[in-house]
């Protein structure tokens, strides 16, 4: 093969590589646009008067800057209350899930005891029950516990959904950490809890973060139980608040989308900040379960 042929082949390969790369980016752009379109449209509708939203042909950008939807949301103390409730609920459920779930996962990961496999299987099995089927039993239990229409009723309910996941995730993550760490720390005088808090948890930070993000998202986005287990406006959360904008005589589209944007922002920001940990945490937690 001559030098000219070699050069020609190299140029061809380079072009093919470039073509493939361009195609990958085109495909990624198309997929990203499809995935992002509902969010883009949500932002667009939040910045337009409803009459523009329904005008033909549809327009992505508003004719002029319109922030009435946002203004009405921020001026209404009810919506501020919904946000506060959702934050409170998300933070409490996340902290409790991590605290209890990590201790349980530590037990499953580092100790063998009678019925440990059955217990772990039970924890996994709870994730397979569709939550809608639990609504009526939960309703009864929460009323019986006198926690109906309280944030603590929701905390308890969400914990039952978030805890199994936290246990499974953290157990999987802790299993990937060699026991040599535990032994070295024990020789240095660490108690079992010292091993967990001083040695294992710092290493398991990505797992903790991904579990925290998941549990926060679970309580932040949950609608059905929040609607069923609360009744006063003071106890409502963001998703229920959004649903209350669907009235008998029409929808407040601009307000609803403005509140949806406001409700989505914390989740988006949180996910962007810890995305790296979430991906690594999920993949590591998924190796062993």
């Amino acid at each position, binding site marked *: 093969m001559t030098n000219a042929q070699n050069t020609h082949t190299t140029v061809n390969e380079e072009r093919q590589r470039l073509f493939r790369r361009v195609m990958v980016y085109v495909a990624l752009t198309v997929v990203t646009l499809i995935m992002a379109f509902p969010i883009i449209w949500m932002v667009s509708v939040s910045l337009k008067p409803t009459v523009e939203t329904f005008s033909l042909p549809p327009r992505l950008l508003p004719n002029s800057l319109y922030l009435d939807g946002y203004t009405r949301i921020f001026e209404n103390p009810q919506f501020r209350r919904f946000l506060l409730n959702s934050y409170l609920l998300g933070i409490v459920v996340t902290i409790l899930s991590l605290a209890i779930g990590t201790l349980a996962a530590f037990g499953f990961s580092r100790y063998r005891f009678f019925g440990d496999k059955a217990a772990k299987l039970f924890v996994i099995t709870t994730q397979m029950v569709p939550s809608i089927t639990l609504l009526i039993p939960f309703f009864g239990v929460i009323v019986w516990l006198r926690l109906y229409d309280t944030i603590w009723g929701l905390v308890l309910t969400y914990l039952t959904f978030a805890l199994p996941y936290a246990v499974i995730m953290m157990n999987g993550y802790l299993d990937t950490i060699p026991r040599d760490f535990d032994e070295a720390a024990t020789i240095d005088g660490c108690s079992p809890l010292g091993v967990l808090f001083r040695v294992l948890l710092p290493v398991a930070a990505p797992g903790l973060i991904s579990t925290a993000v998941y549990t926060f998202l679970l309580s932040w986005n949950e609608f059905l139980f929040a609607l069923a287990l609360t*009744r006063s*406006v003071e106890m409502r959360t963001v998703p229920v608040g959004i649903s209350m904008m*669907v009235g*008998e005589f029409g*929808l407040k589209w601009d307000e609803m989308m403005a509140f949806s944007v406001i409700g989505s922002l914390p989740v988006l920001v949180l996910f962007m900040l810890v995305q790296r940990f979430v991906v690594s945490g999920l993949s590591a937690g998924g190796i062993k379960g």
Partner: protein
Amino acid sequence: MSEEDNVKLTCTLKAAVAAATLLAGTASAQTEIEWLQWFAAENTTGFYEALAEEFEATHPDIKVKLVTQPFGKVRESIVTDSAIGVGSDVLGLNMPWTAEFMKIGLLEPLDDYLARDTNSFATEDLVQAPIGKIEGHTWMVPLNAFPFVMHVNMQLVEQAGFDAPPSTWDELREQAIAIAALGEGTSGIGLPFSSQPPANGPILTFLPLLYTNGGRIMDGTTPNFDNPKVVETLHFLNDLNKAGAIAPGISSRTGGVDLEEFIAGRTGFLISPGVHAQAIEGRNADLDYVAAAVPNNGIEAYRVHGWELGLSSASRNKDEAWEFINFLLSKDVNARVAAASNALPGNLEALEIVGEGAGDVMQAQIGILAEHEPVEELRQAPNAVGSWSLMTEEMQSMLNGDQTPEETAANVQARWLDLIK
């Protein structure tokens, strides 16, 4: 412990017991009643909360707790809350729920309460449809009323070559076809026949037209969908569709979308409660818009709709709850309730106050209320809400060309009877 300390301790304990007794006494003197409704979520921010406070100021022994649910969840909430024993005392109601709630014993008969001398209103002054007796009793009272009207985009009507809204079916057909022919995405009229629950499309458009045709879907308390008037009304809608006068997307169109497209100036006509005027005028002040009676085919009638109030049969505070209803139906308060929703009052004594300085749309509604025949038959319809879904499905099939109006009527009748077995 010295004697002095003993005396101090005894005095402190006595003071604490006295304070606790006093507090307990105060707490038990005030009765809390709950009012489950969706009204406070309907464009009336703070209004109902202020109303409750106003009531509490004149009734210091009663506290009103507002429980506001999204409209789509209220019916389920009333049933589930009652089943679990946390039901409210005063219930916001919709007439089509009546038969279902009566069947499960949720509602308290109101006859004795309505007969009280202390009431702030006379029963004969109330809008009559909701208080008509079923099984010998009255089950609800009207907070306000929304006659169904036809909202008209006059700009499109005039562009299509007409100078007045249609008043008959023939005129409606002619104008709707002409408006659709204008192009640029305009349609004559929308039919919101989405199957999305509560799938109330047929009751929004079909029933008002049926009533102006002199038809009914009930014979007493029995479904009677398969009759010539119903078939004639179905033919009218089917013909409009074939002529291209109906807005596209019938099967996915909800009442909300129908309203918004009218507000955006895309449809010539919208048949819906008069209360929609508030949204129309508020969101598009530039729309050249009037409200008129639903075009008729010989009968001047309107479908009555409104917000009703009832007492829960499980309430432990029925007298206090009725006191609150009594307050809401008093002339002055009821006028304010109606004005807040741009509706007509449930207590017609308040009509004069509502009419003072009211705009053209409200005046049109008052005129319809005074001159046309009110019709409401869903209140006693068995499984009314369930029947809307099957009406929707069968009418979708008809408008898709899969069956004739005669087959549609027969299918709805058969399925409805099957549903209530």
